[in-house]
Structures are given as structure tokens and as C-alpha cells.
């Protein structure tokens, strides 16, 4: 995904291509090593269940990374990610399920080239994270 998206090409209401993230133990372990959140709730079923969770679950930076990939794949390498807001983890993203991240353009400001995208994660039972917002600045066409 290396094609730039320009501010002139974007309209409010446009949807971003959703991305599926199967949550496996293997992936959770890779993610813990990658972002240094080694809390056992994210890679140990028995430990996670002892804290009241149904099973081990995705950590915060894994979920935020899903949002970043969704937006970066859509916006291209010329975009700047400016802010993430309302990133609310309402339910656990539990091992053995698939988290799907999706988004819709909420607003476009041609003057500042700022685009606000509504983003959320969901599993088979509904929304798990968000809906929140990501602000990006897109390049002009020329």
C-alpha cells in the first residue's frame, strides 16, 4: 500500500477497506514481544481468567496498531497521523476470535488538509473498541 491519497480525492462518508485480525496465541506473543507489554493477561489464559477476563486478550498497542494500519493503508505514505481520540476498549478482544477494524471518513477540511476518520474494532458479537476518531493530514495533489 504505497499509493498516496490526496485531499482532493476524499469525500465524507467514504469507507475504508476493513481488515481482519484473527487473534491467536502465536500472534499475541509476537505482539507482546514487539510492543513490550508483557502483562500476562495478554498471553496466559489461566492468568487472564484469574483477573476476571474470559481468556487472554489483545493489548492496547496491538489494537492501536490495527487502527494505524487501517488508516495508513488507506491514506498512503504521504499522510501524517495527527491524533487518535475516543479509543475506548469496551470489551476484550479475546484469543480465538477475529477482530475486524473498519472506518468511515467523517469530515474533510480542504484548507488544513485534515481528514477525520471514524474507526472501530468489532468481533462476532459487536464493537470492542471505539468508535473513535483518527485525524490525518493528506498531501495536496500538486
Amino acid at each position, binding site marked *: *500500500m*504505497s499509493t498516496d491519497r490526496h485531499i482532493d480525492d476524499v469525500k465524507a462518508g467514504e469507507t475504508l477497506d476493513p481488515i481482519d*485480525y484473527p487473534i491467536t496465541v502465536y*500472534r499475541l506473543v*509476537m*505482539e507482546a*514481544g*514487539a*510492543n*513490550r*507489554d*508483557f*502483562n*500476562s*493477561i495478554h498471553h*496466559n489464559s*489461566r*492468568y487472564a481468567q*484469574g*483477573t*476476571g*477476563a474470559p481468556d487472554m486478550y489483545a493489548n*492496547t*498497542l*496491538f489494537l*492501536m*496498531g*490495527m*487502527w*494505524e*494500519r487501517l488508516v*495508513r*493503508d488507506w491514506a*498512503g*505514505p*504521504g499522510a*501524517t*497521523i*495527527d*491524533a*487518535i*481520540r*475516543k*479509543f*475506548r*476498549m469496551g470489551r476484550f478482544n479475546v484469543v480465538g476470535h477475529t477482530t475486524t477494524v473498519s472506518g468511515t471518513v467523517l469530515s474533510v477540511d480542504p484548507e488544513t488538509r485534515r481528514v477525520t476518520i471514524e474507526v472501530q474494532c468489532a468481533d462476532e458479537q459487536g464493537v470492542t473498541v471505539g468508535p473513535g476518531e483518527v485525524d490525518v493530514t493528506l498531501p495536496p495533489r500538486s
Partner: protein
Amino acid sequence: MTDPWIRDWDPMIDLVGTDLSDGEIRWGADRVEAGTIRRYLEPIELGSPIHYDLTAAQQYGHPGLVAPATSLLAYTLPAMWSPGQPTNFSDSAPDAQPDRTPINNADPGPAPATTGFFATDMEIDFLRPVHVGERLGSRGRRLLACTPKETRVGRGAFMTTESDIVADNGDVVARMRTSVYAYNPHPTGSNA
């Protein structure tokens, strides 16, 4: 009449608006480098060339490979163990926890002791991109809110703090508001 477990949080609620940190910058263990960027991107499978290809990054005006925006917090985390420190693994039980970890609730201030802890909300303003070679740290932990609440996993409180992520050249590169739920799990078999 307020439940006693809720009143236990009053000393923490009294600190809302104050900085819970000592004001020092807590520096990450490592500078931003290409290998840790790659490892961060592997499980999320993000392939933008600004994170992998120096020439591409420079074509987009960056002086070096770009750290993923959401990775900045990871670069502020200190080492799990450093030379001269005692072992971090003194218990052989399968689920034993390390003696020290930067991701915990080990400095709760006057809050009551809790055994469960997870993040619930985050908001981040990214003030500029971060590149390979920079070192990041976190500064400040201003308590914005503390709300005791019983949930399906236990009894505790939601706490929101605000911190800056700073670079070693002095720039504030991000501002972050983090909410966590610190709690004691319901006893096993409880229907709460």
C-alpha cells in the same frame, strides 16, 4: 451511605489535578531503530515504505525511517533487566510474575492495593513524526480523574492520567491521556 471500599479511594480522588510523578523523564531502554520498527509492524502487517525503506522515507521529506505513530509509547518503556540488577525471575511457578516490570500499577500513590489492572481508554496527539536514532521518554503523570466503580470483573476505580512523550532533543513529540481500571477481581464463582 457510601460503601467502605468506595471511601478507600477518597485519598486518590483528592489528588485529581496534581502530577503523580516526580517530574523526571523516564527514558526508554533503546533508541528508535529499524529492527524494532520492523518487529512492531510484523504482527499488525503494516507495510508502508516510510517504515522500511530509507529512500522512500526521504522522498516523503523524512530524515530517516519513521517510527509508527502508535509505537511511540513502547519506546518510552525502560528495560526489564539491566546489568547489575538482581534477577527478575525469582519464582519458578508457571504463572509467577517478574519481580519488576514497567507495565503495572506498582506506584498507585494513596490508592488502595489492587491486583487487576488494564487500560480502558487512550487519546494521543502526535505533534511530529519520530525517526530512527531518536530516544524517547515519558514525562509527568497528571491525574485528571478517579472514579470508583464496580464492574463485571471486580471492584476498583477508573483513573485517567496525562503524560508527554519527549525526545532526547527536548521536543514534546506526543501528548497522551490514558485511562486504566485498577481493581480487585470478584471472588471465583461470584455472580457480581
